[in-house]
């Protein structure tokens, strides 16, 4: 118990430190607000243009709401999936990896702790996307089964973080310290870019890409969130390949699959990361300090 309390306290200390650093760059904050505003506006303009011609059933009838939820999943995924590798790289190159390893922290705590910089940077974009969407572009939301919504968001966060940890493990496991990281590239730049359905429903994709999208937690999270949060969303009509196979409620299936993915990806991520650290302890590549 004491161990867990110390880990939690440390994460809070990291959060505080990252916040102090984040707000110390005053110009950055200004550019961040402008960046969110411009990006959001750009996406909403595009969504307005596309909205007239896109069939988004069974996800209600408001395409702007559809895109707001897509953007939100994008921001969460971008941080959780892409950041662990970047954070491991950061503490390796700035030499603090040794110091964290020689402390009572678990192997994962510093990564979660340092991710706060990105959490501070990216997560508020979700709120801003909702804010701009509702205020300027006509997005509307309902909150059917609020508990399910919360569970889905949490599971999306956990599953994408699990993939992020798999990506981070390649830093030591494959000794990939510079250049493109393959796990992140395959998931983020290929599969997610093609098949995550941020800005269009999966149902408009060719069947092969729909199958590919089945391995992404985003697919199930967005399916559930859009059914539950967009006005007139349908809770019973199947849309995803897996939902057409199993005869249970799409929302339930989404949650079950997300739960399974969370467990598998988190376990794999942690297992591979620990394995990578142990390998690096053997071959002398654990720390930059030589």
């Amino acid at each position, binding site marked *: 118990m004491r161990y867990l309390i*110390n880990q939690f*306290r*440390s994460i*809070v*200390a*990291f959060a*505080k*430190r990252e916040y*102090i*650093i984040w707000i*110390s760059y005053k110009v950055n904050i200004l550019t961040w607000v402008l960046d969110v505003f411009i990006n959001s506006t750009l996406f909403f303009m595009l969504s307005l243009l596309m909205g007239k011609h896109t069939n988004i059933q069974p996800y209600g009838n408001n395409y702007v709401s559809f895109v707001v939820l897509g953007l939100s999943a994008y921001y969460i995924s971008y941080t959780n999936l892409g950041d662990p590798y970047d954070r491991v790289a950061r503490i390796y190159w*700035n*030499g*603090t990896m*040794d*110091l*964290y*390893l*020689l*402390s*009572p*922290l678990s192997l994962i705590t510093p990564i979660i702790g340092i991710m706060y910089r990105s959490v501070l940077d990216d997560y508020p974009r979700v709120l801003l996307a909702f804010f701009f969407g509702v205020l300027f572009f006509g997005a509307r939301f309902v909150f059917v089964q609020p508990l399910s919504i919360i569970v889905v968001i949490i599971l999306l966060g956990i599953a994408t973080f699990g993939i992020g940890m798999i990506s981070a493990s390649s830093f030591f496991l494959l000794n990939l310290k510079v250049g493109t990281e393959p796990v992140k590239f395959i998931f983020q730049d290929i599969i997610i870019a093609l098949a995550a359905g941020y800005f269009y429903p999966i149902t408009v994709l060719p069947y092969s890409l729909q199958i590919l999208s089945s391995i992404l937690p985003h697919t199930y999270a967005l399916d559930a969130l859009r059914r539950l949060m967009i006005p007139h969303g349908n809770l019973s009509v199947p849309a995803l390949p897996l939902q057409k196979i199993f005869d249970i409620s799409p929302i339930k299936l989404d949650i079950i699959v997300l739960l399974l993915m969370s467990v598998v990806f988190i376990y794999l991520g942690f297992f591979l990361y620990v394995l990578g650290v142990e390998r690096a*302890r*053997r*071959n*002398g590549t*654990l*720390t930059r*300090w*030589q």
Partner: protein
Amino acid sequence: MSIIELNHISKYFGKQVALNNVSVSINEGEIFGVLGKNGAGKTTLIKIICTLLIPEKGEGSVLGYDLIREDKFIRSNVSLVAPTVDVGVDPTLTVKENLMFWAVVYGLSGKDAEKRVNETLQILNLYNVRDRWAMEISAGMRQKLGIGRAILVRHPLLLLDEPTVKLDLESKFTVREFIKEVRNRFGTTILLTTHYFDEAEELSDRIMIIDKGSIVALDTVANLKSKLSDTEKIVIKAKASKDKARLILNRFDSFSPEYANGKFIFKVPIFSFSMEKILKVFVDMDMEIEEATDIAPELEDIFFKLTGGR
């Protein structure tokens, strides 16, 4: 009591031998210096001791924990200062914020953390700059801050890998004084690697000289000098005519004598008690002696004698 016990430790990186059959025992409260050229194996040794690196062969214990099987316990009870000055010091945090962050990481909290940080700032002589950004203080102060981080928790073992590298003379001096104070105040065992002979000599109770991964000497500085150096210098400042100087040089031909600027220099066998014999000759020749000095061998001479080259 032995804090570090290594038996026949070897480490290879491919075909390169980083450490070769190293056995050493380091006592509680000792400052143990490790001297070696670049690539000699000093950092590999430190990494193995703090379990960031696993040896291929050998066994050992650190703080009573098994080096291989109880590595996690060792890691959470050892403090390390790596050679880069700024490691662990965030430039955009104040001096105090930096230490407060690490205090929590090391398991201190609330008033305990605050008290320990203030105490450490006092010891470091950094209390007056506690609210300044770390980027605004000197490199020497930042290095002290790095060592301060390492002593926030009173771990019994402190590993210092070239702690004064890249520092100016004044900063070097303050860091060295601080290292002595840490040992004297908290009884911390300190393992120190360095390239500076004067630093090793000034700080270390014992010195290990390591070359190509193997230990080539291990003893106190005095013993190393007496065991490993076969000559010492005798310098005599005396007024002498050219004839008398020539006579003296001929008389002590076996001591490789030199004469320049009114000074005679003789290289005599160590502990041969040659000073009296030489002075007697000067006196017998009615020469006025202004000064006579016996210069002990330098650690540097011993190091290069053992490791080859200069």
